[in-house]
Every structure is written in structure tokens, then in C-alpha cells.
């Protein structure tokens, strides 16, 4: 392969010739000799140096030690040196020039849950004092996902009509396992052990009439977790206009992941079926199921929830099973989630709106920005009041959600 150089070789050659010309002009051989190192360097570089290949960056999987993540970085190249640029945790950039096969250790502390890149590295190979470099830069990044924490919830609100056949919630259809429903004349299909003899003695009109004690059936319910990941906004309002994960404090997606995981854990423990829907372009869906294996699947999907572009105008409403309780996790800063809530309420589902906006800190905002923030929050408040009036329940996750859930459970269906 033909080696390509920077302008350094041409400059060295030109300076050597210029010094030679100067020495010739003044008949000074020692001035001509000043050009000797430049000419020797140019010849050495042209003859011996070859253009290095694109360097290969190897980053080990991060290890969690003492509350931080340690990654080992190594660059392989056929060059004399490698210029390495490492971006740590989306925020801090460090630049080093190292010899090939030298190892570096990168330490990062995760400030948020969800997917992140502890190390994102670029490298360019350099040879001959920088006179030739690799034509393309190498790139590599290590990926990791931080699982969100879980808050314990005592109970979850139930749907207005339960349609499941087996579960832990009091149903409305006659069956077995639940509380007393009524005394009913015996019909074909009723079990003889259900006959209430005292009631039969009291109520029977003709010989052979039997009265049976009927119970409510126990039902499972279907829970749909709908996560609006279009916004990922931090506590510090001044960071909303830039992609700066550090210094933003707890973000709305951190709260959404924590809420989704807490709700999924409580629902699966109760024996309910849970589905997960992610709003936005490319949003994924985890189908409705129950059991611990499904909980692990949900936990993995919740851990990788990430911000997405809005797909408001052409995406269809996520399908939820009949009679579901829909937990809608959103900041409600635009109409997407509120319109979906209106549609589900109209279809007869119970909707619980989980407000995932953290407590805001307006530090470093000027007067115009504070005014703008007040307008945005006022519109958001109107949206939330509108869906509450349509029948949705509201839980603010940044406050104590356990108490709010207990109050919802006690509210009559």
C-alpha cells in the first residue's frame, strides 16, 4: 500500500532546500549542513515509514467494584503510537497518546439507571513523529445497563370488571374461592357439597328443592404498563436543553424505570398478567404473561428503556387486553400520553396516571426561562386535571407512591 504523509515531509524538504540555497548564496558549507537533519529525517520517513492500519480498540466488559465500574482498554496497532480519545459515562473526555498494547483503566460511576456506555473510545494510529496516520479512526464502546431500584408497594388498584379465571382478586362471577355471594336454587352443575341444608329447610317450597351457597370467583387481572419515554428530563431545569446526563439529577426516565419495575414486581407477586409497552419510534412491547420468568423478562426490558423520538401522528395505540388496568407512566408535558389515556378511559379500562416528572430545581434560569417553565407546567397541570375529570387516577411517583396506591386501593370500584 502506498504510504501517504502529512505536509511535514514536504515542509522538511523545502526547509532543507532553502537552507542549502542560503548556504550556497553566502558560500557557507556549515549553513548548508543545517539542512542535513531535515533531509535525513525526510529520507528516513519516506523510506522506512508505512501508513498504519486502522487501530483496533479492545474494551473489557465493565466490572462493578466499590460502587464504580472499571473497564480495561487496550489498543492494537502496527503504528509507533496511538492517539486515544475516551469518553467516560457520556460526560468526561480524556485524550492520551499511548504505545500499542499499553493498557489503560477507566473508572466511571453511573448516575442513572438504564442503558449507558461506560467507555466510548476513538483511536488514530500515528507513525514517524506524526508524519503519517491511519486513514480511518478506530471506534469501540462498552455497553452496560443499570437495573433500577424497586419500591415496595402494598397493593395495586384493581380493574372495574375482572375477566380472568384464576387469580387473587375478588371477582364478580359465581364460582369458588371467594367470599359469600348468595343463596340460589340448585341447578344442574352445582356440587352437592355446596348445598346449604339450613337454607333449604327454610326456603324450599316443594319436595326435592335444594338451596346452594354460591361464592364469588377469584380472578386475575391484566395490567398494562405503558411507558412514555419521549422525554428524559432531570431535576435541574437548566439541563433540559442539552444532552448532559451529569448534573441533571434524577431524571423522569429514572423514575419511570423504578415505577415500572415496582409495579411489575407487585403485580407478578399477586399473580396478575403484566404487559409492557414503550411509546415512541421503535418502542418495544413485551406481551402479557405471568410468573417469575416473565418478571425477569420484564425487568430486562425495563432496564433498557431509553429516550425515543415521538411517533404521535402515525403510531397506533398500544393494544391492551379487555378490562385491563393501564398504568400510564409519563411526564405529561405533551398531549401524547393524555390522548391515549382518554382513549383507554373511553374503552372502559381503568387508567392510573403515574406522574414521573421529578421535583424541579429552577437554579440558573433567568427570568424569561422561569416564566416559560411556569407556562409549560401550567399546561401540564391542565392536561392532568382533564384526564382526572375523565376518570383517571393520579399518582405522583416523586412523592410517596406507596401511600397513594393504598388510597387508590381503598377507593370503591
Amino acid at each position: 500500500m502506498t504510504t501517504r504523509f502529512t505536509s511535514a515531509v514536504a515542509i522538511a524538504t523545502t526547509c532543507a532546500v532553502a537552507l542549502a540555497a542560503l548556504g550556497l548564496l553566502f558560500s557557507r558549507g556549515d549553513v548548508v549542513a543545517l539542512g542535513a537533519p531535515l533531509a535525513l529525517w525526510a529520507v528516513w520517513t519516506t523510506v522506512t515509514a508505512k501508513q498504519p492500519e486502522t487501530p483496533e480498540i479492545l474494551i473489557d466488559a465493565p466490572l462493578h467494584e466499590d460502587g464504580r465500574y472499571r473497564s480495561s482498554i487496550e489498543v492494537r496497532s502496527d503504528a509507533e503510537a496511538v492517539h486515544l480519545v475516551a469518553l467516560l459515562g457520556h460526560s468526561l473526555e480524556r485524550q492520551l497518546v499511548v504505545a500499542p498494547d499499553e493498557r489503560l483503566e477507566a473508572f466511571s460511576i453511573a448516575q442513572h439507571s438504564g442503558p449507558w456506555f461506560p467507555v466510548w473510545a476513538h483511536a488514530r494510529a500515528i507513525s514517524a513523529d506524526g508524519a503519517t496516520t491511519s486513514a480511518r479512526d478506530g471506534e469501540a464502546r462498552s455497553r452496560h445497563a443499570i437495573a433500577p431500584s424497586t419500591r415496595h408497594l402494598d397493593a395495586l388498584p384493581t380493574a372495574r370488571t375482572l375477566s380472568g379465571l384464576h387469580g387473587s382478586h375478588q371477582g364478580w362471577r359465581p364460582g369458588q374461592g371467594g367470599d359469600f355471594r348468595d343463596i340460589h336454587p340448585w341447578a344442574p352443575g352445582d356440587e352437592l357439597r355446596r348445598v346449604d341444608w339450613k337454607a333449604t329447610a327454610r326456603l324450599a317450597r316443594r319436595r326435592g328443592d335444594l338451596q346452594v351457597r354460591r361464592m364469588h370467583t377469584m380472578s386475575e387481572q391484566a395490567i398494562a404498563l405503558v411507558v412514555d419515554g419521549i422525554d428524559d428530563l432531570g431535576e435541574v431545569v437548566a439541563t433540559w436543553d442539552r444532552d448532559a446526563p451529569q448534573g441533571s439529577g434524577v431524571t423522569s426516565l429514572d423514575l419511570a424505570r423504578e415505577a415500572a419495575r415496582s409495579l411489575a414486581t407487585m403485580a407478578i407477586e399477586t399473580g396478575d398478567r403484566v404487559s409492557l409497552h414503550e411509546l415512541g419510534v421503535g418502542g418495544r412491547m413485551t406481551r402479557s404473561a405471568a410468573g417469575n420468568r416473565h418478571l425477569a423478562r420484564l425487568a430486562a426490558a425495563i432496564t433498557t428503556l431509553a429516550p425515543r423520538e415521538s411517533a404521535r401522528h402515525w403510531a397506533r395505540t398500544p393494544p391492551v387486553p379487555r378490562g385491563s388496568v393501564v398504568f400510564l407512566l409519563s411526564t405529561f408535558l405533551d398531549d401524547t400520553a393524555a390522548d391515549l389515556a382518554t382513549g383507554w378511559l373511553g374503552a372502559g379500562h381503568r387508567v392510573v396516571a403515574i406522574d414521573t416528572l421529578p421535583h424541579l430545581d429552577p437554579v440558573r434560569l433567568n427570568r424569561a426561562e422561569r416564566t416559560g417553565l411556569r407556562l409549560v407546567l401550567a399546561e401540564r397541570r391542565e392536561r392532568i386535571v382533564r384526564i382526572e375529570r375523565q376518570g383517571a387516577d393520579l399518582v405522583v411517583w416523586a412523592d410517596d407512591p406507596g401511600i397513594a396506591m393504598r388510597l387508590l386501593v381503598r377507593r370503591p370500584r
Partner: protein
Amino acid sequence: MILPSRTAVLHRVMGPRGIPVAVLRLLLAVIPTVAAAVLLPTDSWMALAILPVIGAAFLHSRLSYAALAVIAIGVLISDPSAWRIAVAVLAVHAVHVLVTLCCAIPGHASISWRALRPTGIRFIVIQAIAQLVGLVASSLQRAEPRPALALVGALALVAVAVVLTVSNTAAGKKVRDTPMTPSYKNPDVTDRV
């Protein structure tokens, strides 16, 4: 109130032992200044010594190469001397190597000693040859002024220049001589981790 995060505490890189590239840039300002102070008369070197300092600050202007002219003038206006030519050859070579290296790497980076080893070895070998050439040229110049010596040396350098220029032209488009500036496009975070 939320305090801003201290990223230097949150994230850290531990690399091999080395020096900041800023030290190389400092050498790029110091070496030609010292050479000018040694080679030029005391009342004139200060005026010309500002050029290397500006050249080190504005690296890609290649103003540091003006120091070569200053050094050559210093050798010209004084009598041939072995130690003068030694200092001048060292300074000319060092300026070129430092400019080439510092143009390829950013000033706020650090460079490990192992990465500097090939540069150091090459510098020493070329210096050994160039110092010998300079010593011989200076000795011959002192013994008897020989215009033919200058002519032969100049023609040799021109021949080398022609060969190098032709070969560089044949290689085609040059590579970048500015530090790498990576772009961090939004990663596809939907990839499974």
C-alpha cells in the same frame, strides 16, 4: 438545591506514565528561543525570539519554522564554530520534530514515555549523523573558505528534495495533519446490552 456533579471525581482514566503534550509545546517555544539567544548578538535575539513563542501558540500556522531562519541567520553572521553549528543542528531538528508531532496530537492530551521512544531513537540516530556532518562542514569552513563545498552540499540537498517531492506526489492525497476530533453520534441505545 442540587449541587453540580464533579465529573473529575465520578470518572477517571489511569494510563501509563508519561508527560502532558503541553510540555512538548513548551519545549517548542523554549528550544528555538534558547538557540536564538546563544547564536545571535545579545541586543537582537529578543526581538526575533517572539516568533517561536507565537509559533508554539498557533501551531498550525507553522510559524515555528520561522525560527529556522533565525537560527540560520545566527550561524551566518558569526564565524564558523563547532559548538555553534552543534547547537543550531540540534535546534533545527528539534523544532521540526516537535512541530510535526504537536500538530498530530492535541495540546491537552498526555503522551506516554513508551509512545515517545521511537521518536527519541530516531532523533538520536539522525542527530548523530547530522552533528557529524555539521562538525565536518564547520571544520572545513574554518580551515579554508570553500565555495565549492557549499555548492556540492546544496546540489545534494536539492537532489534529495526532487526525489522526495516526486515520490510524495506519486503517493497521492496527503493524510490529515490535525488531531483527531471524534464525533459522538447518538448511540443506538435500543441495541440489546
